[in-house]
């Protein structure tokens, strides 16, 4: 029973990592590639490490595998955010069919400060404000 669960988790994790890789190869621009790579790869390695944790007889090793899952869950969004932010400043082009760029006009290219959406002048790029109740 437990063997089946471990094998299934391992295969599912490997398939999710393959999906992440296919997405990174096939997607049209950096930001769409990044969301494939980050989310699918986190889920994939989570499944594989869970399978390792279930198969370990030693409790310490199982706990180590579980902690590695939490490490991935914590660090993957941070790393993805930092790359996306840096890429947006460097000026990596968006896909030509991108419809909405909500950051356009909100970032100061010199100081890298984000202008808030509450300011009337700084939302000239089309940020539509919804009035409160």
């Amino acid at each position, binding site marked *: 029973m437990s063997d089946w669960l*471990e094998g299934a988790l391992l295969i599912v994790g490997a398939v999710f990592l393959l999906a992440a890789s296919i997405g990174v190869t096939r997607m049209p621009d950096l930001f769409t590639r990044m969301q494939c790579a980050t989310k699918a790869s986190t889920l994939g390695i989570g499944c594989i490490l869970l399978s390792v944790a279930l198969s370990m007889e030693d409790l310490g090793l199982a706990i180590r595998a579980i902690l590695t899952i939490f490490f991935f869950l914590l660090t993957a969004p941070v790393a993805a955010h930092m790359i996306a932010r840096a890429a947006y*400043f460097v000026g990596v082009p968006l896909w030509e069919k991108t419809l909405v760029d909500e950051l356009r006009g909100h970032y100061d290219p010199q100081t890298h400060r984000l202008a808030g959406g509450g300011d009337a002048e700084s939302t000239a790029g089309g940020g539509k404000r919804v009035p409160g109740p």
Partner: protein
Amino acid sequence: MTSVVPSAVFEPADAGLAVLTAALALGFLRLVRGPSLPDRVVALDLITVIAAAILAVETLATRRAVFLDAAIVLALISFLGTVAFARYLERRGRDE
């Protein structure tokens, strides 16, 4: 009848390793092709995650805990390297 053909048994670890190897090859394709530097950083991040996954599967296949330690260290180094790359990209963009 005790003669069991070992290759006929489905081993999840072997199948997982085959799939992960294909994923690794696709990641390298983006690493080589990627038009901009951030593309390559994303591909490198994915490749290190896949390498950590391969090490985890090796832990299962060989029952040796050393591979799990290597996977943990690889995860740590992957995060630090990605953050360092992002800082470098942002600073380089500002200096130009």
